[in-house]
């Protein structure tokens, strides 16, 4: 026996039926809850008026469903739907109507609220009292929330005996005796089977089925049923993006198949670089188009709590509608909207601590001086420091004349703190629904301040988000949607850039000056330290004495949209939307610049007092400067959509859309301040047959003001086909445990109009000032002008041609796999010409669409969910591999063809092949010369002379390693829930990326020795002539100036940037329902979240590998530990 909803199309497939049923049940649930305590039943109060005439029962029931909220269920063969009955033309209650039409039928019915269930007269009533002695009773509940499930079906497997649960989730099943398997199922949940051998109480706990085939997926300018999606689209559970710190972009890596992302710095408020399917162009714009609620906006503006859905559109059929803007992929984010019902209030409070993931350790002055002496003596210079001085550094007997300052340690706290509070409410009634939210985020920095000042230079970042999304039904068929989103960001920091301060703290030698001197001047102010001449900065002064910098960003974004359903007026399934939005962002900065009064002490007088030299007078007051800038964007869109199913099997959909956008910045140049405009059309046509065969065509036709008339608009078509094998008769039910199998192929084009190169209006030439000449006996200068950029009428967008082949499958109701293979060819990349012959005489090489690049790879998502008893397990893994190849950037061939950048991956690293260290002067004499360096010594790096010309130089550089952007990004997450406890871990890693060591690995290499620190971990790792350790990790040290032979990019210095890190770990506990209910709350959950807790990197031990730093001297990423409370009521 199965339950079937009677619709106009009773032959429709089960899934479709269930979808409607589920929605209906949801409706029942909501309305029952809302109106639970109130009145009598719906059935008693509702009067219906049907069209008169003789009709089949099927038509009658359909009509009732359409005109009321009733839903019909029937047990197999309970009622003959083709039977005809007479309907009279009068208003009546449901029971009156049913009694009338069923008077000639054996069918009986029962009304449970809005559900009407039929049964055979001969059969006992499903929950009849008569069969009490042999029945199975129980309850069906949601495994995760504990809520009862209404309308779940419970059947004896292999029989026609079954029933549905009532509004309390209870069921009673007629039990014929013997051994049976009872199956409980409900749409959206995995079915569950329990064996019985007698009457008993049997409760079912169902677990949500993560693949919801009928779920709506957000696609370009609309949404589609999941089964019908045949483009390459990745969606992610928004919960996965809710990291306690930073910005959303920082949580993308490894979470979404097809995204390559790296976070290079942990400065408060910084975001990640990310690309969809890696990098497919070496043109100016490599970034995806980001649309928030359909409007182009910044991703990091949003608070993760406000996000409803997050999708990434990757292939041509998904992106073609964005035409000239879609080539680099599209990210679609929709914010949450109101749902009908009582207010659902959610509060989340978090507080945490942050600390650098890994900081380099810097050598103290004694070690530093020792290493410097070795560097000098290795090249025949006298040591710079005596044993006595080194001893003073070691013992710190006089820390003011012989300082040993750990700048990093002195300037940075061990940890800092952050706080986050979110409050959101959703709810509404028949007319209006709302989602409103407020969020506050606060993060402090790691640098200290000088508390003797009245002003504060400590870092602090704050963000306030307000969202109000309201939907109002103006009419039964008309909805008005209004989104208002405001963000205020504030950042207070020292006057100097954080990267500058950090860089000084890790670069200045430990023995330069003390932090500050102990004595006060006559005004009671400290003697701030600075070395003579002031050419070596004192990082403490840079941090604390230079004043401060206040920034704030105000962003107001609003969208108003009007949706009109023309199903009744024109034809079923036709809808129109008009949308208008404006965004206004402004930035203000206040700079208060100061400079300290500095001193330098070289000696002590006979009394032991420090003798000071006055270095710089500084200023007593802070200088004032302020800057402001702003930008705005206006967007207008109108679209028509159509979606209808003919003859039950032919599903036809369509979209036609127009949009235009104007974006203007208060730029510093008149050209830059002209509005940026785009305009376009988009369309889509979908057809599917019986949910087995899908075909889809998309196009974008849009243009950009950068190009000449006649070259502005491009047409970007794409097509895709899909085949759901699992819906074929020859597979359905024949392959065991196969739930779903879909194959899909798409091919098409999109474009990229962000041509960059600092050029706008490429069809217009620019006139530059140029060299002039002096004429005349009085030598008068006449300034010159010349053509700067040549006009190019033919300049146009980049075109991307993409192929995607994908497979989606689900087995055992718990195991899901989606793999896409992609190939992409990018043509017409806008590059500055490099191959225009010189005889042409061009001063500024023209820009043109001549670049070509290829990209291909795989992205995959694997998911697995399983419930074992009370333990709920889930795993999700993603894998992205993208390998690109630069075909032509218009660079002519090198003489040595192996040096060509064309044919290599974008950003491919080049360097010399290191053969080891020279072990003797004889070996040096018998080897090719190196860059003409005459002072090579044993212990210097020996390189291979690739072209055999007897000289090792840049001509011998070959492609080595990869680029600094990883080719492989992967993620693996596990979560376990048991009763109220939950635990989740998320690992993320990258591979196929390399970088070169540098900076601190080349110590004592500046003309100014005070500007070079020494990494403590490198002590003893360099070649030391005294030890003759030719197996040393690092070559001979040099003491002065650049050494052009050791310190060039080579295999010696190249390292793998691969890493795997525990990106996130979370432990939570949800209070049991009974406690929560007593508190009049729905859910209460406590949790601890950690971020970047562990990192494994085979080649980078001393600092965070993700920063891509050559020596660890960049601002580190943060690891965090957050404690939080989430209350829902």
């Amino acid at each position, binding site marked *: 026996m199965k339950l079937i909803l009677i619709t106009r199309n009773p032959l429709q497939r089960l899934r479709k039926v269930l979808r409607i049923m589920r929605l209906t049940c949801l409706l029942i649930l909501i309305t029952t809850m809302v109106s639970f305590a109130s009145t009598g039943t719906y059935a008693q109060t509702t009067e219906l008026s049907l069209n008169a005439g003789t009709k089949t029962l099927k038509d009658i029931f359909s009509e009732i469903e359409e005109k009321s909220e009733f839903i019909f269920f029937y047990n197999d063969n309970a009622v003959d739907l083709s039977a005809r009955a007479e309907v009279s033309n009068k208003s009546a209650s449901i029971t009156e109507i049913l009694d009338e039409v069923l008077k000639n039928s054996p069918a009986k019915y029962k009304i449970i609220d809005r559900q009407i269930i039929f049964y055979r007269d001969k059969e006992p009533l499903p929950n009849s009292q008569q069969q009490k002695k042999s029945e199975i009773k129980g309850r069906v509940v949601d495994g995760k929330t504990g809520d009862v499930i209404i309308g779940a079906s419970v059947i004896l497997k292999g029989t026609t005996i079954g029933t549905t649960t009532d509004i309390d989730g209870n069921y009673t099943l007629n039990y014929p005796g013997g051994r049976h398997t009872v199956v409980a199922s409900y749409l959206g949940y995995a079915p569950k089977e329990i064996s019985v051998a007698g009457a008993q109480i049997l409760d079912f706990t169902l677990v949500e089925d993560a693949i919801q085939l009928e779920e709506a997926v957000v696609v370009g300018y609309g949404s589609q049923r999941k089964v019908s999606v045949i483009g390459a689209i990745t969606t992610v559970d928004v919960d996965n993006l809710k990291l306690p710190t930073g910005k959303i972009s920082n949580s993308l890596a490894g979470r979404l198949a097809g995204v390559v992302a790296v976070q290079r710095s942990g400065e408060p408020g910084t975001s990640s670089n990310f690309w969809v399917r890696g990098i497919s162009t070496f043109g100016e714009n490599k970034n995806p188009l980001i649309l928030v609620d359909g409007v182009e906006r910044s991703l990091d503006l949003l608070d993760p709590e406000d996000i409803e859905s997050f999708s990434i559109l990757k292939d041509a059929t998904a992106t073609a509608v964005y035409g000239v803007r879609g080539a680099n992929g599209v990210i679609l984010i929709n914010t949450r909207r109101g749902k009908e019902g009582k207010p659902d209030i959610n509060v989340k409070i978090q507080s945490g601590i942050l600390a650098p993931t890994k900081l380099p350790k810097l050598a103290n002055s004694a070690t530093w001086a020792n290493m410097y002496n070795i560097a000098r003596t290795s090249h025949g210079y006298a040591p710079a420091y005596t044993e006595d001085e080194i001893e003073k550094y070691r013992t710190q007997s006089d820390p003011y004349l012989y300082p040993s300052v750990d700048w990093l340690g002195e300037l940075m706290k061990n940890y800092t703190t952050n706080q986050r509070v979110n409050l959101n409410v959703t709810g509404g009634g028949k007319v209006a629904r709302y989602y409103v939210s407020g969020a506050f985020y606060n993060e402090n920095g790691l640098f200290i301040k000088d508390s003797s000042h009245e002003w504060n230079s400590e870092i602090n970042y704050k963000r306030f988000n307000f969202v109000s999304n309201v939907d109002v039904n103006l009419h039964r068929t008309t909805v008005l949607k209004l989104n208002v989103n405001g963000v205020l960001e504030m950042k207070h920091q020292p006057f100097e850039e954080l990267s500058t301060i950090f860089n000084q703290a890790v670069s200045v030698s430990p023995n330069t000056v003390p932090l500050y001197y102990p004595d006060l001047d006559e005004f009671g102010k400290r003697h701030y330290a600075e070395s003579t001449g002031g050419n070596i900065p004192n990082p403490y002064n840079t941090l604390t004495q230079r004043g401060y910098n206040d920034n704030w960003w105000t962003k107001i974004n609003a969208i108003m949209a009007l949706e009109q359903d023309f199903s009744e007026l024109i034809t079923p399934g036709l809808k129109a939307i008009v949308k208008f939005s404006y965004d206004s962002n402004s930035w203000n900065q206040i700079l208060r610049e100061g400079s300290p009064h500095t001193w330098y002490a070289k000696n002590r007088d006979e009394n032991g007092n420090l003798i000071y030299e006055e270095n710089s007078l500084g200023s007593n007051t802070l200088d004032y400067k302020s800057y402001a800038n702003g930008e705005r964007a206006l967007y207008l869109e109108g679209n028509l959509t159509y979606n209808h199913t003919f003859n039950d099997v032919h599903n036809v959909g369509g979209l036609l859309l127009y949009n235009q956008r104007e974006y203007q910045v208060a730029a510093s140049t*008149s050209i830059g301040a002209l509005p940026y405009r785009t305009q376009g059309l988009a369309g889509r046509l979908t057809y599917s047959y019986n949910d087995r065969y899908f075909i889809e065509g998309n196009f974008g036709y849009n243009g950009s003001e950068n190009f000449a008339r006649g070259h502005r608009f491009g047409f970007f078509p794409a097509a895709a086909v899909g085949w759901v094998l699992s819906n074929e008769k020859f597979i359905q039910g024949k392959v065991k445990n196969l739930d779903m199998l879909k194959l899909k192929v798409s091919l098409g084009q999109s474009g990229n109009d962000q041509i960059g190169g600092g050029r706008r209006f490429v069809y217009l030439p620019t006139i530059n000032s*140029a060299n002039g000449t002096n004429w005349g006996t009085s030598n008068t200068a006449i300034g010159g002008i010349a053509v700067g950029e*040549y006009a*190019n009428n033919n300049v146009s967008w980049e075109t991307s041609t993409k192929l995607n082949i994908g497979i989606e499958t689900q087995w055992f109701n718990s195991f899901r796999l989606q793999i896409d293979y992609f190939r992409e060819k990018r043509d017409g990349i806008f590059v500055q010409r490099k191959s*225009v*012959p010189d*005889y*042409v005489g061009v001063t500024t090489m*023209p820009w043109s669409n001549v670049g070509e690049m290829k990209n291909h790879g795989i992205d995959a998502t694997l998911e697995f969910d399983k419930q074992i008893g009370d333990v709920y397990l889930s795993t999700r893994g993603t894998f992205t591999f993208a390998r690109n190849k630069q075909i032509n950037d218009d660079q002519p061939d*090198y003489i040595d063809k192996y040096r060509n950048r064309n044919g290599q991956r974008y950003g491919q690293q080049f360097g010399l092949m290191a053969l080891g260290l020279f072990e003797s002067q004889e070996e040096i004499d018998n080897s090719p010369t190196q860059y003409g360096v005459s002072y090579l010594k044993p212990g210097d790096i020996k390189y291979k002379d690739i072209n055999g010309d007897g000289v090792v130089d840049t001509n011998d550089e070959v492609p080595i390693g990869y680029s600094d952007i990883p080719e492989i990004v992967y993620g693996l997450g596990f979560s376990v829930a048991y009763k109220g406890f939950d635990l989740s871990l998320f690992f993320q890693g990258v591979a196929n990326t390399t970088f070169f060591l540098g900076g601190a690995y080349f110590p004592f290499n500046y003309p100014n020795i005070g500007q070079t620190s020494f990494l403590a971990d490198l002590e003893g790792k360099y070649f030391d002539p005294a030890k003759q350790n030719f197996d040393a990790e690092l070559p001979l040290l040099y003491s002065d100036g650049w050494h052009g032979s050791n310190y060039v990019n080579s295999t010696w210095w190249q390292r793998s940037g691969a890493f795997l890190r525990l990106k996130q770990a979370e432990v939570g506990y949800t209070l049991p329902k009974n406690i929560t209910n007593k508190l009049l709350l729905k859910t209460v959950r406590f949790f601890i979240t950690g971020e970047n807790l562990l990192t494994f990197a085979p080649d980078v031990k001393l600092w965070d590998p993700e920063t891509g730093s050559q020596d660890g001297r960049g601002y580190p990423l943060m690891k965090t530990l957050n404690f939080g409370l989430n209350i829902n009521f």
Partner: protein
Amino acid sequence: MSFFSCDSYLDKQPDDMQTLEGVFEKRSSTEQYLANVLNYLPHQWDNVCAVELADGTDFGWPFTPASDEAEWGAVRTYAIMQNGSHSAASPAMDFWKPLYRGIRESNIFLQNVSRCTELKNDELKLWTAEARYTNIMCHYWLTMLYGPIILVKNELVDVNGTIYRQRNTWEECVEWITESLKDVANDLPKKQEDIYAGKPTKAAALAYRSRLLLYSASKLMNGNPFFASVKNEDGTLLFPQNNDPNKWKLAADAAKEIIDLCESGQLPYGLLVSESDEENKKGITYKKVFTENWNKELLDTKDLGDDVYILDLAPAPNGERFKGHATNCVTQQQVDAYAMSNGKYPITGYTSSGRPVIDATSGYSEEGFSTFTVPTFDTSNGGYTGEAFNMYKDREPRFYASVGYNEGVWTNTSTTEPIYLNKYGTEGASSSDYNRTGYLITKYTHPSSTTNPYALQWRRCWPNFRYAEVLLNYVEAKIELGETAEALKYWNQVRNRGGMPNIESVYPTVTSDIELATFLIRRERQVEFAFENVRWFDANRWKISTETNHGKVYGMNVNISSLSAMRDEYYVRTAFETRIFKEAQYLQPIPQSSIVKNPKLIQNPGW
């Protein structure tokens, strides 16, 4: 879809962005465009040290220190032209790109200038001629440096395509350039108005034409077997295969044409000769050629503006007295080239070991010291008397006008003390900034200038092309044609102005002995045009650079052990470097970066 029939939404909003059309509507901006075009004419005075090629236009002119007459002590980017490391991959100087840019810019101007309705007819004609002149002269310099080139002429090649071109033949290049120069000369003024002084003139166009024809007649380009096999992909041979003596006739005629025009008064130029024989004899007139602005000998010249400091400060001795840079040094070979005051050349050549071959009849000695008086070129003509090395005694006036030597006097009359050119300088303090040869160029130093403190008092015009060169071009061509006697008059004009006796009075067989005449005219040019960027091109076209600019280069021993040991140690011929000049270096290498962009472009032989 009506909004798509008109994409006006995407039209640029109007603003005041300048357009090419707009530039050529206004006279003032058209003139600015012309100013940039004319700036592509090489700055031939820029010869202190090479200037960076940042924007590709202000390129240095390295030919004085690159040849055997001089050596620069400061930045020496030209040094790779003589140390053997010169290559197409990293050429010493990339003239190829900037000169072709000059061609393009002039063509843009020529295509648009007629649209400027604010120009009067004669101004339009003049500016057009000036831009054409620039266009031709960029071709001229490319040809002088690289040999056969790609003749772009007046074509604006499409920048958005990639069009490969091959080189034209030497004959085609010379013919087009010389014909065009003759043609444009008709449109150029005899003399520019004072406010435009320095802009191209008719005389300049004809003068460069004369020089190129002489160059083309010379040994390097007239049937040189080293170039015999150089051909384009299609088999076109780029260099003339046979020696054509008639080319000397063309060269002679071209020079004579200018001489006639000047002598008949049709062109306001001529040799600068003083009415006072005394001034001519002492070399004072010769000095004035380089210190008197806009004098009538300068066919092509340019006011140096503030750059004039390089003429006063760069060669001045270092130390407190002058605060100069002591960077512009004269080689011993150049010192040896000057005649004695009696007109005889003291040194006629060198032995294989580098020892000078001394003409004993000249009265020259490299032994001992004497007290003698030399001219100081100041207004009082007082002269300077002091004890100095005998090598510098009784030399011709042009020597004293051009070269500063140890224990001699600086041209600047405010200093009558001797100068010391060695490691210890004038003050005796050891300095890293001392001259390398023991000689400094004084040719361009104004007798009244001060270097300490430096004050810009005397504007100077640089001699891009002097009338004297036209005369000596004529003389050389006539010698090659075996008609020396016909040219003696012009040769002696130059000599007499420089304080020298008639050539036939010193060397009576000059009219009958072509070999002697050739030796003498070459010496004459080396002396007369010293440090004027003429020697490099002369030595090349005579094909003697492989000897004169190859091997050890000498100066005095500036690295003396102490100041007091100066007289004992200093006056020894000392090689300060060894130069390499291979046959390939007669032509500059076309930059490899330009070859790879144009596969049809054949590299010069040997590079």
